[in-house]
């Protein structure tokens, strides 16, 4: 016991004396459980961003400490506390999952630090729980399905069957689609989520099939996406019940689906605020180098993580490395004055982005790999519907 | 003398197999009353019914004139019927003393005493010493039961039965598994109790039974075919035919 304690003290002194001059970013993501596939993509993108920055923001070295949330809110909160108290990071970023972010939020904000979400955008944190020190580098959960609802209206789809996991983001996605979709929702299933998520959807798909809906709208991120897509394919629903999804078919699931040859999904459409084919300098560099280094297209998680690091770097430069100047950091972040891979965007009063949403289609690229490309712009400079409920000006 | 235990017209069926058939039995207060019978005669079933682990199909059991037929096991024990088992059954991980403490009424009556080391400590410890003295295990007081020999475990069981102040003690084959010398010790021990303790003795060892019993009942195929003093039983023709003759 004493020895262990002594060892811990020793390690801590060594580490803390070596890194005193650096800027430390805590990055919370999922590195274990099947959802780690997302976490690794994000980690790769973060490391790529650091490489592009030469590990520096101006003259200040940046170091990223990764934390594993284990796909569970309480573990996520625990690891956030550790990053704050043990690793003494200057800023906390990351978070794939809305419920993990909601659980961890208080620790970071109570410590007076800046919190940046690289993915999760729960409605609560856009409205009554909004905070001047919290920024989203992604989107508010409802926005992407809202864009999808708009697509449905244009395409003349009258009735929908909806499936999503039963957690914060799943509920937001459902709410989002219902916000803009003008037709009728004929059925809805919320399935078990978390470390032991439900992966066999036979009962739900059978219900969807007989519901007589014009389309099936789903949200199954990460490891569940492959399982869902396969079962949709095996159930022979392709012609009966066209599939529309958000955050389900992405750079992570596409290579796997291609390896298993589910050609049915080529041509399917999704909405997103970013796409590898977006034509801007930052995006081209990011996508090319990512492909070169990791042999596949980056996912939107990767794009947002890449943005997160660049966004932080821009703020660090603005305050010239003085991380105690929280007000300075805040105004620098709020200006979004960096080269985002999604192109130029701005922040609303609740610190969520006001940005474009695109309709993307799954295609085969010139090398024969499956990817997506932009076919239409659904929303231009779209702000999330919760901004008005946030007290911030 | 009066009856301490009276059984009236007891019947028990196990899926068509008759284990107890119209059985009547009276045990007199203060007696050592033995039940003998060939294997499969229904001795164990009878003991289980008296003690409450098995309930009879019909008939009644009276203990000190109280109908205890349908009373559950632990409650019968509290009324004063105590038993030992064919296969030694003691708390092996505990000490000899603790085993006997658990058998005393003062521990049982204060079973919900959570926070103090046990009440009536002196009373209980004196009782432990007394009972261990009776069976000659006083030396083993603080030894773990696991370290005792088989014979000593059987003695411990008798000591536990004594500690419980049982009015009726059911001894289910106390000589089972004992060597010749240990059997002699056990007989001597039970002899010491003769007259002080009512005992219902179920036993295979005929020498032991005839040396100890005041009265003997013979059980064959679930029925009592004879009850009487050892000498009468020894010379009873029915018994000789059904049991001793074949043994």
């Amino acid at each position, binding site marked *: 016991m004493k020895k262990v304690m002594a060892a811990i003290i020793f390690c801590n002194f060594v580490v803390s004396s070596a890194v005193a001059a650096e800027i430390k970013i805590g990055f919370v993501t999922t590195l274990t459980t099947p959802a780690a596939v997302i976490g690794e993509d994000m980690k790769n993108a973060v490391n790529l961003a650091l490489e592009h920055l030469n590990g520096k923001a101006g003259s200040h070295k940046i170091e990223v400490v990764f934390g594993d949330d284990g796909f569970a809110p309480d573990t996520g909160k625990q690891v956030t506390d550790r990053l704050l108290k043990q690793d003494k990071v200057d800023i906390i970023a990351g978070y794939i999952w809305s419920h993990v972010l909601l*659980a961890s939020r208080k620790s970071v904000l109570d410590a007076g630090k800046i919190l940046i979400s690289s993915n999760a955008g729960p409605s609560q944190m856009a409205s009554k729980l909004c905070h001047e020190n919290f920024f989203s580098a992604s989107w508010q959960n409802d926005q992407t399905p809202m864009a999808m609802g708009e697509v449905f209206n244009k395409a003349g789809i009258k009735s929908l069957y909806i499936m999503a996991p039963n957690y914060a983001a799943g509920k937001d996605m459902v709410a989002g689609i219902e916000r803009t979709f003008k037709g009728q929702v004929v059925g809805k299933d919320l399935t078990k989520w978390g470390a032991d998520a439900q992966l066999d959807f036979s009962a739900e798909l059978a219900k969807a099939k007989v519901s007589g809906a014009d389309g099936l709208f789903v949200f199954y991120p990460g490891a569940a996406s492959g399982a869902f897509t396969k079962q949709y394919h095996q159930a022979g629903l392709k012609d009966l019940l066209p599939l529309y999804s958000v955050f389900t078919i992405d750079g992570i699931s596409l290579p796997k689906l291609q390896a298993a040859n589910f050609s049915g999904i080529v041509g399917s459409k999704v909405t997103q605020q970013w796409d590898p084919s977006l034509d801007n300098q930052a995006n081209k560099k990011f996508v090319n180098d990512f492909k070169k280094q990791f042999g596949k297209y980056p996912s939107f998680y990767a794009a947002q993580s890449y943005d997160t690091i660049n966004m932080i770097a821009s703020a660090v430069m603005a305050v010239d490395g003085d991380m105690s100047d929280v007000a300075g950091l805040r105004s620098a972040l709020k200006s979004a004055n960096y080269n985002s891979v999604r192109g130029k965007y701005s922040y609303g009063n609740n610190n969520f982005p006001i940005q474009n949403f695109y309709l993307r289609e799954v295609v085969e690229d010139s090398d024969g790999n499956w990817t997506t490309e932009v076919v239409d712009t659904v929303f231009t400079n779209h702000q999330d519907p919760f901004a008005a409920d946030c007290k911030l000006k | 003398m009066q009856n301490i235990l009276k059984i009236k017209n007891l019947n028990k069926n196990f899926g068509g197999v008759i284990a107890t058939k119209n059985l009547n039995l009276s045990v007199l207060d203060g007696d050592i009353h033995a039940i003998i019978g060939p294997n499969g005669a229904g001795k164990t079933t009878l003991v289980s019914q008296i003690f409450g682990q098995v309930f009879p199909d019909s008939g009644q059991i009276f203990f000190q004139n109280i109908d205890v037929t349908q009373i559950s096991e632990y409650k019968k024990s509290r009324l004063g019927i105590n038993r030992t088992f064919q296969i030694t059954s003691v708390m092996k991980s505990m000490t000899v003393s*603790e085993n006997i403490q658990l058998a005393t009424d003062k521990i049982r009556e204060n079973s919900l005493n959570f926070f103090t080391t046990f009440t009536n400590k002196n009373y209980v410890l004196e009782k432990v010493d007394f009972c261990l003295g009776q069976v000659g295990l006083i030396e083993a007081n603080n030894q773990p039961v696991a370290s005792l020999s088989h014979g000593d475990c059987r003695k411990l069981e008798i000591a536990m039965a004594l500690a419980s102040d049982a009015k009726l003690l059911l001894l289910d084959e106390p000589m089972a598994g004992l060597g010749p010398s240990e059997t002699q010790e056990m007989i001597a021990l039970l002899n010491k109790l003769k007259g002080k303790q009512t005992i219902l003795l179920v036993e295979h060892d005929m020498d032991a039974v005839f040396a100890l019993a005041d009265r003997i009942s013979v059980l064959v195929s679930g029925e009592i075919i004879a009850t009487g003093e050892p000498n009468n039983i020894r010379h009873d023709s029915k018994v000789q035919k059904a049991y001793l003759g074949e043994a």
Partner: protein
Amino acid sequence: MQFIKPLKFFILASLLVFPILFNQIGMSFYLDLATRLCILAIAAVGLNLILGYGGMISFGHAAYLGLGAYAVGIPAHHWLYGGLDFLATTNGFVHILIAIAISGLFALLTGLICLKTKGVYFIMITMAFSQMAYYLFVSIEEYGGDDGLVINTRSEIPLINLDDPIQMFLVSFSSLIFFMWLVHLITKSNFGLILSGIKDNEARMVSLGYNVYFHKLIAFIFSGIICGFAGVLLGNFTTFISPEMIDWSRSGELMFMVILGGVATVMGPLFGAIVFVILEEVLSSITIYWHLPFGLLLITVVLFFRGGLSSLFSK
């Protein structure tokens, strides 16, 4: 009959002094670690009462931790956001009372059914009930469902400020000492003697005239209440509660703390919690594959150190 031997006293003293020392030199993280350790150790002490001393292997004790934590979270939630006025409070004593009442009631109701079964059936049915509690909280949207509930205000207790990490730690530490002492007393009492008797030979205890079912039920309720209290501390410590904390794997962790430390010993649960929490912390900060050495260690302990870690000390 000595409650604490010198070596053990030394360990307890270190557990008290070092975290505070670390905190004073700016390493507040270790204070948090020690607080978490104390809280989990209390739950392990509670579980040990029935698992170690009573031989009832409960695989569902995380449910009581959860119930205790929700007993803080739900009143605090209503206090902040309105609704259910009779519940809305931040008074710590009320939280503790609710936790004790609810966990006691849950133990009573489930115990009535669980204690009819034995062995592995008992293990599984206790797990089934805790899973039901898990899904119950998942289904209550008002309290966050799957996403959990952020506890915005800690329990208020006169003279004590739980927002101060040192006070939070001291409260947890002294509660741990109190419950270790309490369980020690119980196991040395008549009731404790009877409980050990039941663990050893249930049939014999019945024939000695003990109402075994009733005594087991009492121990089961006691154990649940201790874990419920630990839950109150846990809720105040993490300021967040989610159904995930009730999941069967958490019950498993509690069990492992007890077995790792050594069942039916006063210090066992504490040793188990110390080793568990520190290993988890040290290993997981080294590698995300920390489950591998951790698993190997568990297997090694089982195969080669029978009787858990406290058997190493008692020699």
